């Protein structure tokens, strides 16, 4: 195999941290196959992001920016990624398994006629390890095409450290006419860290009984500068925005501390959080499956104990 191409992702033209987790994967993979890591940043005004990532010691950073690349569209982005892949002796194209990565990479694979592995946890030079069945099985898969494509599970890799300047070059993309138009983005505004970047997460479920009670969850999270998560039940009920859903079909997280409060621990929810380092569960039903994976479980009515927990910690922290 040859070079490894990592697609960088940004949020409002700031590098997303999960790209640095995927970079660790890319560097490990490069060692296995004696290749070089190339990073591609696509989008109008993307040079700032390219500069940021150029500090991480890769063989080169390529920028592709031109009119028509203001907003991400799978059709145009996949065409650019495929062109850069072909022009740079690339054997593996990868990106973090974010909603953009999931949307884009299969289309890149189709454009290149490549096989693809989703949610990769590791690569030994020949096969990829990835999750299936909501994280309840790991599969070893071989991709038989000369060019391979994958998305990378960010939580499985440390954040890459800065490792010296890398050259930045620009690529002039040809943009195909897209059959898709960006209309708008309704951002869920939050002062809290992203779920995938937080070291402490406090998640609530149906047991919270209403959006107003999520204040209890938020108060605890804010003591730690943590993120708030939710189950599908809480999101479906409209209590919490969709991008706070943790689970098989939401965010996969691996925080240092994960509070699971008033949620039962469905297979689909546990798929998203069971790799957290320390799990605390509070549920009034001692049979709730969440207790099976909790390091410390408290059988109690959350409305009775949560204010006391939050207040005691606040006092101890001197806040």
């Amino acid at each position, binding site marked *: 195999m040859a070079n490894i191409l990592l697609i960088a992702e940004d949020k409002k033209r700031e590098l997303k941290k999960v790209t640095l987790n995927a970079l660790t994967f890319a560097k490990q993979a490069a060692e296995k196959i004696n290749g070089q890591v190339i990073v591609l940043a696509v989008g109008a005004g993307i040079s700032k992001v390219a500069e940021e990532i150029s500090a991480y010691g890769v063989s080169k950073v390529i920028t592709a920016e031109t009119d028509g690349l203001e907003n991400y569209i799978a059709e145009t982005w996949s065409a650019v990624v495929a062109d850069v892949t072909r022009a740079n002796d690339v054997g593996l194209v990868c990106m973090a398994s974010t909603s953009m990565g999931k949307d884009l990479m299969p289309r890149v694979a189709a454009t290149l006629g490549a096989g*693809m592995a989703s949610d990769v946890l590791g690569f030994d030079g020949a096969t990829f390890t990835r999750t299936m069945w909501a994280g309840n099985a*790991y599969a070893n898969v071989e991709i038989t095409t000369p060019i391979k494509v994958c998305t990378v599970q960010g939580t499985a890799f440390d954040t890459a450290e800065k490792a010296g300047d890398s050259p930045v070059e620009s690529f002039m993309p040809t943009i195909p006419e897209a059959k898709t138009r960006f209309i708008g983005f309704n951002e869920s505004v939050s002062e809290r860290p992203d779920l995938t970047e937080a070291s402490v997460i406090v998640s609530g479920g149906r047991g919270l009984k209403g959006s107003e009670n999520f204040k209890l969850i938020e108060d605890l999270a804010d003591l730690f500068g943590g993120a708030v998560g939710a189950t599908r039940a809480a999101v479906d009920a409209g209590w919490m925005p969709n991008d706070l859903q943790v689970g*098989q079909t939401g965010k996969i997280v691996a925080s240092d501390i994960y509070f699971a409060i008033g949620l039962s621990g469905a297979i689909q929810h546990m798929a998203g959080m069971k790799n957290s380092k320390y799990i605390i569960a509070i549920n009034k039903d001692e049979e709730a499956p969440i207790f099976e994976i909790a390091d*410390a479980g408290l059988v109690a009515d959350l409305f009775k104990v949560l204010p006391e927990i939050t207040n005691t910690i606040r006092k101890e922290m001197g806040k």
Partner: protein
Amino acid sequence: MKVLVTAKRVTDPDMKIKVKADGSGIELSGMSYKINPFDEIAIEEAIRIKEQSGGEVIVASIGGDEAQTEIRTGLAMGADRGILVKTDGDVDSDAVARVLVKLVEKERPDLVIMGKQAVDLDDNQVPQLLAGYLGWGQACFASKLQINGNTATVAREVDGGIETLEIDLPGIISADLRLNEPRYPTLPGIMKAKKKPLDTIHPADLDVDITPKVVVKGFSNPPERKGGRIVADVPELLKALKDEAGAF
């Protein structure tokens, strides 16, 4: 409007999955099967479009003979006819997408709606692959869909919020959890479904080579978590948080 939807037969999402001791596969004895929940949502959406503005809903599945059950579920919900593309053994997402390309060429639907992922392999690839092969627009992870003549406006659940796209038709939509709540088939629906046409064809009839690009070499169990400790009260929980988790 003619809408093509898919119905994958998957292991019951609420059953515990175990890897076989020799790592050759998943323990399937005693397993029950269901229609992929995301496909159910896709089928519901297609039926709603038909109920509003007429047309036809075709349910396709790629799999063994047993997958007829899942196609019949779609027909019982209200779809008009089914197509089983019969395969033996495993097919990868790429082969499924290439089979669907041929079905699309044959049926010429105005819209394809599919579940965003199948809850067994969790690939989340086929709709995007299909859109890529066809050169159509894609709107994945849809939580709202509105048809306006030759285009569709789609709200997508993405990191950080909800994005709205407009795609030309024909196009590809992948359904997320909150697109709708699928109906349960009624008894008359189930009776009617038995009489609806269900064709069985083979990949070779469509001139598709289903040799996979991605081959599973083996399975393993994820690392076990040692949990299960119950603490007596709030002070004990706080002590664990402090001493074991180092929270404060």
